[in-house]
């Protein structure tokens, strides 16, 4: 068991290194080194960069040295929490990303909770009452949910909110809290704004997950252990929830790791429409502006968080599934 964890850990580490190399390559991608682009963008904005500052930067990132040294220097900067400058914003990347990453994680979590809370019961119902009217209705609604693009739904929600409730339902904060420092009131304001983006972002995933849960559970319901559980005299409800549902849920745990990048990349347009301060639109803007430090850092952070998420889901899976815990010694 320990060996299994260790192996996963080493694998995670290798993946992180690979991601960091990829991010570095992305940062290096535009023609010319980024100091040149930095100077260019500074002067375009009317500012100036002193000769000494340029020298310091060249030294810091080892730009006149071989690419491997540059990579190592960059990594050592990152480990110290220095992600470089966001050119377009003329602020350290760390400050630009800062809250947005946290908010992205919060929105993703909210979307996932919504998805699971809706999809699991419906998936279970659809499998247990297969081919019932309810199953058909949910399947129909589910496919509609799958077919409507998220941004469209976002637009509809915005329109309805504006037209009938005279409220701007976009954003994650009321105007008075948007720039305010964190406080209990701001947190409550966030909670109040969370449901709409969570539902809009979670809906297509919900439809998908209903289908997966339904078919997983149908497979499990056919297995003899369900029948022996019934033969022990448990109520049907208890039989289904304790045994096949439990087994059918396991595959979902292994998807936890991918949820974050899935939602971030899937949510860019929705985030733009709903003006959500997440990293999705930021990444888009950074790429358009060739703001490579910002783009590279976002990709790096998303990648690392995915690896961590995957590692956590591996641990969870090991915890809930004894077959993994005990067989792969």
């Amino acid at each position, binding site marked *: 068991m320990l060996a299994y964890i260790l192996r996963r850990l080493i694998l995670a580490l290798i993946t992180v290194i690979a991601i960091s190399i990829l991010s570095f390559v992305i940062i290096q991608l535009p023609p010319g080194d980024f100091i040149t682009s930095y100077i260019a963008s500074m002067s375009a904005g009317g500012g100036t960069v002193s000769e000494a500052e340029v020298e310091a930067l060249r030294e810091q990132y080892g730009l006149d040295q071989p690419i491997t040294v540059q990579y190592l220097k960059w990594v050592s900067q990152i480990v110290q929490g220095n992600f470089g400058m966001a050119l377009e914003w003329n602020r350290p990347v760390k400050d630009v990303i800062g809250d947005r990453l946290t908010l992205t994680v919060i929105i993703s979590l909210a979307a996932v909770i919504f998805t699971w809370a809706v999809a699991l019961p419906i998936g279970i119902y659809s499998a247990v009452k297969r081919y019932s009217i309810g199953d058909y209705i949910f399947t129909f609604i589910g496919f509609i949910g799958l077919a409507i693009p998220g941004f469209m739904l976002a637009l509809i929600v915005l329109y309805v909110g504006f037209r009938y409730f005279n409220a701007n339902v976009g954003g994650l904060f009321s105007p008075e809290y948007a720039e305010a420092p964190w406080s209990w009131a701001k947190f409550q304001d966030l909670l109040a704004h969370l449901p709409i983006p969570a539902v809009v972002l979670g809906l297509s995933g919900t439809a998908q997950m209903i289908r997966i849960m339904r078919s997983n559970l149908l497979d499990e319901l056919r297995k003899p*252990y369900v029948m022996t559980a019934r*033969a022990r005299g448990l109520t049907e409800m208890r039989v289904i929830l304790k045994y096949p549902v439990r087994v059918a849920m396991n595959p979902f745990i292994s998807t936890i790791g991918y949820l974050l990048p899935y939602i971030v990349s899937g949510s860019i347009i929705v985030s733009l429409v709903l003006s959500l301060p997440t990293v999705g639109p930021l990444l888009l803007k950074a790429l358009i502006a060739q703001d490579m430090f910002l783009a590279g850092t976002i990709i790096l952070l998303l990648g690392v968080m995915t690896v961590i998420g995957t590692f956590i889901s591996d641990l969870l899976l090991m915890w809930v599934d004894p077959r993994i815990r005990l*067989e792969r010694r």
Partner: protein
Amino acid sequence: MNDQRTPLLSVRDLKTYFFQDEGTVKAVDGASFDVARGQTLGIVGESGCGKSVTARSILRIVEAPGRIVGGQILWYDAKGQPTDLTQLDPDGHQMRSLRGREIGLIFQEPMTSFSPVHTVGNQIIEAIRLHMGVSKAEARRRAIEALRQVGIPQPERRIDDYAFQLSGGLRQRAMIAVALSCDPRLLIADEPTTALDVTTQAQILDLLRELQQQRGMAIMLITHNLGVVAEMCDDVVVMYLGRVVEVGSVDAIFHQAKHPYTRALLRSIPAITTPPRVKLHTITGSIPHPYNRPSGCPFHPRCPERLRGLCEVAEPALRAVGNGQSVSCFLYENRA
């Protein structure tokens, strides 16, 4: 103590159909037999003749689109009072208090009969707590005892194992422990030894017999193996296409089989005296597709002794032919 005049279970003209889009599968179509108290009833017949569905019907766990559409399943309590199980709500209290408490079930596949994510102990303790209303600690103690009784070594450690950690033989023993944990009066064993090697098979059968003697429970033993029947059973039910074609004591079935199907079945097993490399008897023809069952006697297309103009039009009823033996075949009806 028990009223010996009534059987434990009496299945009367049971019909269980599966209603599918492609057609109706009449998995059990008018089966009748009795299970006597404390005795072993063997149920034999080719694959697909409805043995397992009969067992599931008795427990009322037939899955959709299957449904009991007719007949009675009479369960006699200790005082000899019958309850018709077909009239009970399958998920209701009364039926559930029979399931696992009065009627235990074991299956062919001990591996998949246990949940892959729960310990063996969890599943035994669950049954004991549900039916016996005892504390967790007491249930655990009884579960360990149940495992010990079925011959599992170190039961206090094995109780926390998962099924996949046990060998095939131990798994089936554990399955028996679950089924017998609440001391049922009837054990339904659906091909309990098919998945096991021959030695283990013999051990499991010995165990079942031993436990039966200790507890005086009845066993309904479903099997393909006529050798097992000869060894274990008091009475035998022969099924064909959802119907009972012959019932009798083991002796009667093996020595004076009446129904052509039973006789064909018996001829198809090799005897110790059969010379090697001699082709075994097979029953001519194959089992008809469940959607288009033959008219008249379901066996008539394959029957070497069929009576033209009768067997393909009329269905013979199950008739006593003496000695507690019954057969459904026109050869034994007094025709005018």
